[in-house]
C-alpha cells in the first residue's frame, strides 16, 4: 500500500485513506471538438512503465483532490501537489529529473 503526503493537510496518508482518480492533467474536450479529440480525452490513457502523473483524493481525510508524480515501476514518489494546476509545477519536474536523468515531460 502506497503512502502519499496530502499537500493540503500535510498528512502522510496511507492508501486506504485515499481514492485514486486516474491520470492527471487531462484537458477536457467537449462540444465542438472532433470525435478523435473527444475519444482521446475520454479513453486514451497513458500506461507508462516509469514516471506517471496521477489524481488522488484524500477521501477519508480532508476530502481534497491532489496530484502525485510517481514511478509505476519502482513506486518511488517524486512529489505531490494541489490539483489546481494544468501542468506539473517546476519543483516536481526538477525532482523527477534529479532521480530520472534524461526524463522529458510529455513522455
Amino acid at each position: 500500500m502506497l503512502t502519499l503526503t496530502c499537500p493540503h493537510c500535510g498528512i502522510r496518508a496511507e492508501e486506504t485513506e485515499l481514492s485514486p482518480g486516474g491520470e492527471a492533467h487531462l484537458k477536457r474536450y467537449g462540444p465542438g471538438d472532433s470525435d478523435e479529440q473527444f475519444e482521446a480525452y475520454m479513453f486514451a490513457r497513458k500506461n507508462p512503465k516509469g514516471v506517471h502523473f496521477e489524481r488522488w483524493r484524500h477521501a477519508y481525510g480532508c476530502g481534497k483532490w491532489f496530484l502525485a508524480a510517481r514511478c509505476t515501476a519502482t513506486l518511488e514518489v517524486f512529489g505531490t501537489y494541489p490539483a489546481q494546476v494544468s501542468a506539473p509545477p517546476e519543483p516536481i519536474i526538477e525532482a523527477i529529473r534529479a532521480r530520472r536523468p534524461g526524463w522529458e515531460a510529455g513522455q
Partner: protein
Amino acid sequence: MSARLSRGGRLIDRRAPVTFRFDGKPMTGFAGDTLAASLLANDQMLVGRSFKYHRPRGIVASGAEEPNALVGLGQGPRFEPNQRVTTTETFEGLTAISQNHWPSLDYDIGAVNGYLSRFLPAGFYYKMFLWPRPFWKHVYEPFIRQSAGLGKVPQEADADRYEQAYAFADLVVAGGGIAGLTAALTAARAGKRVILLEQTAHWGGRAPVDGDEIDGMAADLWVKNAVQALEGMANVTMRLRTMVSGLYDHGYALAYERVADHTPGDGRPRHRLWRIRAGKVIAATGAIERPLSFAGNDIPGVMLAAAVRDFVVNWAVSPGDRSVVVTNNDDAYRTALALADAGLVVAAVIDARPSVTGDLPAQVRARGIRVLEGRGIAKVKGAKRVTGVAICAQQGEGAVLEEIACDVVAMSGGWSPVVHLWSHCGGKLIWDADASMFRPDAARPPTGDAGQPMAATAGAASGALQTAAVLADAHAAAGGEGLAPQATGPAEAPMLPVWIMPQGAGIALKSKMWLDYQNDVKVSDVQLAAREGYESVEHTKRYTTLGMATDQGKLSNINGLAVLSHALHQEIPATGTTTFRPPYTPISLGSIGGEARGEIFQPLRQTPMHDWHSAQGAYWEPVGQWRRPYCYKRSGETAHEAVNREVINTRSNIGLLDASTLGKILVKGADAGRFLDMLYTGVMSTLPVGKCRYGLMCNDNGFLIDDGVVVRMSEDSWLCHTTTGGADRIHAHMEDWLQCEWWDWKVHTANLTEQYAQVAIVGPKARMLLEKLGGMDVSREALPFMTYAEGTLGGFRARVFRISFSGELSYEVAVPASEGLAFWEACVAAGAEFGAMPYGTEALHVLRAEKGFIMIGDETDGTVIPQDLGLGWAISKKKADYLGKRAQERSHMADPNRWKLVGLETLDGSVLPDGALAVAEGVNANGQQRTQGRVTSTYHSPVLKKGIAMGLVLNGPGRMGEVLDFPVDDGKVVQARIVDQVFYDKDGEKQNV
C-alpha cells in the same frame, strides 16, 4: 518404524503428556511437540494422499515448507482443512483427520489413478477433456470436481474471532533465528525501534539443532542470552508464532500471528493480522532444503535430511530405525551425526560427489558409517513405507550396484534461500552458480517511496550458509554498528549440483521422480512440457501445475526450474524463476476479515425514525448502507399483501414515506448556477427562487448517473436532491469537477443528507393533513406543484417541497434530523382521521412504475443515456455545454435504433420476470438467440389489477402495440405488448390539484 526416543528432545516437556486423536485413533504426545513430531512418535508416517494420483504421502519436512502432511484440524465450528502438521502445535484434545482418500487412508480407491499415471501426463486435462464439448459440463467437470481437492470445506460458521492491529517501526525483522536475533540486536543497540517476529513457537531457528558455537558458547545458550538482552530493551517488540506473510508497497508488511491456534476456545482471538509500516524490513527467513530427484523419492519415509535431525534433536523422535542419508553436500552429514548420537543406525551416506573430503564427512567416517562416493539412489523400494534403496553410480543410468535395507531416506540437494519477502515487492535475484541457488541481488533491492532500499536479507536468506557468514551478514544488514557475534564451525566442501539422480536416468525412472509432491508433478512431466514447446517457466508452471499446490513450490520450484532449463538446453538463470507472491504460507480468511463480521461488517445507517419503523413491523430492505422499510406487515399479512394495501391507501387516502435517506446536497456561491448548468442536462441557473425542477446528471461519457429534484433556495443557493444510494457519490462527483476542472469558480457544496429528516405526505388527502398540523398555507394557490416554502408546520421548523414521485398530490417536508421522529409521529397522529398509513420502498416503486417514472439502477445501468428514456424534455437544447453533451453527440448515441424505454403489458395480465429478455429472429456470432429488449422494472399494480412493466426495447417508442416474446423459465414464453409507460393518470392531473 518411527518412535519416541527415551532421552533428549530440546523442545518437549516429558512431564506434560498430551492426548490427541488422528483419524479417530487416540495418541499421546508431549507439550512442545508439533503434530508432525507427535504423529511420528506414534509411528504414523503415512498422513495423506496426493492430489492427482492419490499416492501415499508421509511427512517430508519439519517446517512451513511441508507439502504433504496436510490434515483437517479441529471439529464442528473449529474445523479447518489443509493444515500442515509441521506447523501445528500439539495440544490436549487436538483432533485431526487425514485428507484426500476414500474409503480410508490405508486403502484408497483413487490410488488407481497411480496405475494410470502414464495416461495422465502434464496437460492431461487440457488434452483429454476438450471434446466432445457437451461432455465437459455433464461428464468431465462433475468427475473432476468429485475427485479433486484436498480437504473438505467446513460446514459450520467459524466459532472463533479474529482481529487486526497496527504497528510502526524503524525496522521489522522477519525470522528469529540467529540471523534475526543478530540483526535485531545490532539495530536495537543503535537505537532503532525494532519489531522482531518469528513464525514458530521458539527462538533460535536451526542453529541449536546444527550444534553451532557462537561467541564461545553453545548456540542454545547464545540464543537464550540474545533473547534476554532484547527483552530488556524498551525499543524492541518481539512476537513468536508470527509470520511476516508479505511485504508490500512503501514498507507495508503484513504479519500473521497465530495467537490461539494451540489454545482453542480460550477466549483470545484465534489469529491477529498485524498491519505494519516499517522503515525497513530485514528478511532473516533462512533457507529451505531441496529434495533430490530420484525414483520413488515420494514414498513415505523419504524426508529432508535437516528435517530428520530436527525430529531427532528437537522432539526426540526417530523417524526410523535404520536410515540412509543421500546428499550432494556436507551439511547432510550433520544428520548422520545426529542419528548416530541418538543411537540410531545409519546404514550409509550416499554422496553424489565423486570424492568426499572435509570435516563433517571425516567425523561420520570416524563413527564407522559407510560413505559411498559418486553414488546415487536408483530407486527407493517400498509402497506405503520405505523398505530399502537400490544404489547406483550417479554418473550412470541407474544400474543397481547394491541394495540397502532402510526405513528412512534422509535427502539433501542443497539449500535455497527463502527470498519471498525480498521478492514480493520487486527485489531482484541473481543465480549463484557456486552454491547453485538464487539469492537476493543486494544491488537491486525493493525500493520505498523515496527510492531508498526498503528491504534487506540477513543470514541464510542472503545465501550465507556457514554460521560465521550468517552472523556477519546479519550484523551488516542491520547497520553494522558494534561488534558482530563470532562463530567457529567445521569447514564445508563445495556442494555439487544434482538435479536428477542418476544423471543418465531413463524415462522409467524419471516418471517416478517427484518434483511437486502435493500436485504429483514429476521430472518426466516438466520434460514433456518442454518437448511440447513450453519455454517460459510461468507457462510451464501452469501447464504442469508445478509449484501451484498449497505449499507454492517451496520444495519443488528450483528443482523444476533446473529440469526445465536442462530440457531447454539453457542455463538456469536464462530460465528464471516464477514470481513470488504473498502470502508466504496461507493465512486465514478470518484474519483478513478481522473484526468486520456480522453487525460490524459495515456501518449501518439509520434514519431518525428507524426505531418507529421497527416497532411497526417494518420489513427491512438494505439500500446502500441504509435500512429502509420495504413494507409494514400487519399481522396475518404477506409482504405482497402489505404492499398492495399501502399502494391502494396512498392512492385513495394518505401514505407517509420516510424519505430521509434521499441525498440533499447544498450548492452555494456566486457561480453555483453556472456550475449546476454544467452538472445537469437541464438549466438550473434560471430556476426562480422558491421553485423546483427535475434534473438529470450524466457523466462526461454521456451516461445517466443520477436524478432528483433541484430547489432554488435563495439567490445563490440550490438544494440538489439525489438518489438514496447516490448522495455520497454525487457529492464526490461535484467536488471532483469543482476542485480539478473549474477550481476558480466560486462554489461551495455541503452534503446535508443526515442533517434533515424528510417525510413524504402523499395522497388525495395530503393537504388536509398539513392543514391540520397548521402553520403554513399549503393551498394550491400559495404552494403550487413544483414549488417550495419554508415555515412552521405544527410547531416544527419545516421546508416544504411540493414534489411528487407517485403522481399523487404530495408534499415532502424536511425538518431538522433531531426533530424527525417527533414530526413523523405528529404526521401519523394528524393523519389518523384521514386514513394515513406509512408505506415502504416497494409501494414507492409500484407507485412510481404506475406513473412511468424511472429509477436510477433499474432503468439505468451505466449504458443508458437520458435520450433512451424519453427524457429529452429534461435536456437543454440551448446550453453550449454540460457534462455528457459531447458524448451524446457521438454517432452511436444519436443512432435512432437504440433500445428505448416503453411500457410493457402482458397479454395474460401476469407479471413479467425482472430482467427478462425479448427475443428477436436469428442467432448471433456465438450461436445465441438475438435479443431486442429487456424488462427493467416490473410489478403487480394493485390499482390496475394486472402486471405492469417498463423495459428498454429496440426502437420501442416507434413500435407501440407490437407484441414481444419473453422466454421465461421452463421453456415458457410470455407475450407482452408495447405500450406507453405511463399506466396511471396519463395527463398528470392528480399531482397538480
